[in-house]
């Protein structure tokens, strides 16, 4: 069963990422919405993994088979992340620990935690968030960054530290997103087994989300009144690199509130009304459905579409491939290209129809399932 709430949120995440990446990589403009797409993407990977596991269980797949497929999928995404780094960001950035390698590791970890009690998963997520500022302080986070870019040495220690703490999407604290997403999925999308069983309530998820957002806002407001160690080193300001506690709380809260609210508003209640509430708006619903089904493909494709021409143009002009990076065109043109890309992608994907054997998602299923 497809949940419109997940499709809408994933589409929002992918659209934000496309706009941000086009404007950043082509025009050097960092948008204020830059920090919204990736956390949502990571959070939804946890929600989707929960739903996928439930689907596999319903099909009668054994625990061992589910674990094997999960590991294969995790490794596939992890490997694809490296291939993506090499092909898109060029070989010197193979260990920049981008979002795909992170999601691959997230899937491997989720396979481990899926049988654990919910409080353990939440303690793991909280620990990951709380230890991350200490780890950053231990390793001297800024030493691994050159201006606004992660730039490690190719040594084992730097690569490992990049993977754990200092990369673009390091395990600490980013692993909190898929873990919390998995727990939120289990709270929101739990199946009713008996006819008298109540449908799961969305209020706990909404409440926790609202509390996290309130705490993030409070952290920002009282930052100046707190001791410097606490406000700067521990809580931090609203920043994605590094992902501060304030940022993680705010982004997680936003993801939880959006997921809970959309689930309440647009998802069908199987027991009361199994037909999707958005059936009336079939034509409009097709857009998020299409983008969501091919989110991984769109994520990779939009990088290829705007970065490869940039690298090729640089070489043709007799420059370094990355010479025109962040200075190729004005912002309005970069944003226009992003919109054109999204429209063209939608047209192409609709042209493919309901055959889902195309794209990286189809290949992943073919290889791993």
């Amino acid at each position: 069963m497809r949940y419109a709430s997940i499709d809408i949120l994933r589409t929002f995440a992918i659209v934000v990422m496309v706009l941000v990446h086009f404007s950043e990589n082509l025009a050097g403009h960092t948008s204020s919405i830059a920090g919204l797409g990736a956390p949502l993407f990571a959070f939804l990977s946890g929600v989707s993994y929960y739903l996928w596991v439930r689907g596999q269980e319903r099909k009668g797949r054994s625990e061992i088979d589910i674990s094997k497929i999960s590991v294969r999928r995790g490794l596939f995404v992890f490997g694809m992340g490296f291939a993506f780094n090499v092909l898109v960001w060029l070989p010197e950035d193979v260990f920049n620990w981008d979002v795909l390698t992170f999601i691959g590791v997230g899937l491997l970890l989720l396979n481990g935690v899926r049988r654990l009690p919910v409080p353990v998963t939440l303690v793991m997520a909280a620990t990951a968030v709380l230890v991350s500022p200490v780890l950053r302080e231990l390793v001297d986070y800024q030493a691994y960054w050159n201006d606004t870019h992660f730039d490690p040495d190719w040594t084992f220690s730097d690569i490992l530290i990049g993977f754990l703490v200092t990369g673009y999407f390091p395990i600490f604290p980013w692993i909190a997103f898929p873990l919390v997403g998995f727990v939120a999925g289990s709270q929101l999308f739990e199946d009713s087994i008996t006819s008298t069983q109540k449908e799961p309530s969305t209020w706990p998820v909404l409440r926790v989300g609202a509390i996290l957002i309130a705490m993030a806002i409070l952290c920002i407001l009282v930052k100046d009144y707190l001791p410097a160690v606490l406000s700067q080193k521990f809580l931090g300001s609203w920043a994605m690199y590094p992902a501060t506690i304030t940022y993680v709380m705010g982004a997680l809260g936003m993801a939880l509130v959006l997921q809970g609210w959309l689930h309440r508003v647009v998802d069908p209640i199987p027991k009361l009304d199994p037909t999707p509430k958005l059936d009336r708006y079939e034509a409009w619903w097709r857009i998020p459905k299409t983008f969501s089904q091919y989110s991984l493909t769109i994520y990779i494709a939009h990088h290829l579409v705007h970065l490869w021409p940039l690298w090729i143009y640089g070489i043709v002009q007799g420059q370094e491939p990355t010479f025109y990076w962040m200075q190729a065109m004005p912002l309005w043109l970069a944003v226009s290209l992003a919109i054109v890309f999204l429209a063209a992608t939608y047209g192409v994907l609709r042209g493919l129809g309901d055959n889902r054997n195309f794209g990286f998602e189809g290949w992943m299923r073919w290889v791993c399932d």
Partner: protein
Amino acid sequence: MIDPSLTPELPKGALIEKLTLVTQCSADDDVVLELPPPLQRWAVRSSTSAPPLPKCIAEVLILSLPLEDRQNAQSLEPTSMAAIQRWVGHTSGGPIDTSCHLMQFQGAQIWWSPERCAIVAAPDRLISIRNALIEVTFYELELRHIERQVGAAWPEMEADLPLAFQFDERSIQRRSELKKRFQLALLGRARLARIGPYVHAPHLYPPTLSSQLSERLRERTRMMHRHEFLSEQLEVFGNVYELCGQRSSDYVHTRTGTILEWIIIILLLAQTLFTVVEIFAASGT
């Protein structure tokens, strides 16, 4: 309550009473019978047009037709008997109930259905017959109620069966539901046990009119068999939910221990992580 189209046909002198079975009564109530004390039920006379009393569990309409001295109930005109039978068979919920029981004892004639009864007997016997009818009606209603509850709970119990063997993280949210069903099964057993001594009461010797009537009705409505079957069915429910309770309790205990162990493991891992990262950071720089 009384269908006006039927009442005119009833023989002259017939008196209709509306008796309500209640779980609590006050000094103002017109109590006509107190069921045996362990049952804590009273039959209260109320107006036929009055709304249901609070704490009411059932309502029964009883038609009494006193016979003149030395007159036998069988000497009643066939049309009057047919009218009485039609009246008894008329149910509030739908079509005429054709399963009403007709009995004759010592010159008295009795029609019985769970909602309406009719007595045609000598005036001095009317009260004892009425009381016997009320008592049997209560037992029958109680059995019927439990049967309905058990019948409705079978599919849920079948869905809960796997939890009697294995309890997991996802089942935790069903604990309150299981608790309710376990309570319901126990409550059913308690109610059944409460009426057991009366349903299985041995034949009274020397017999009286009311004891004979009571025994006959219990036989006609197969009360003893139904009581036994219900007892067996509720035993199944009890066993299943007892096992579910045991499994869930064991799981929750283990889960608490597991959570604590995992928290310790996570803290140890965090400590190890700090050490490893510190070592690598030092070697890297």
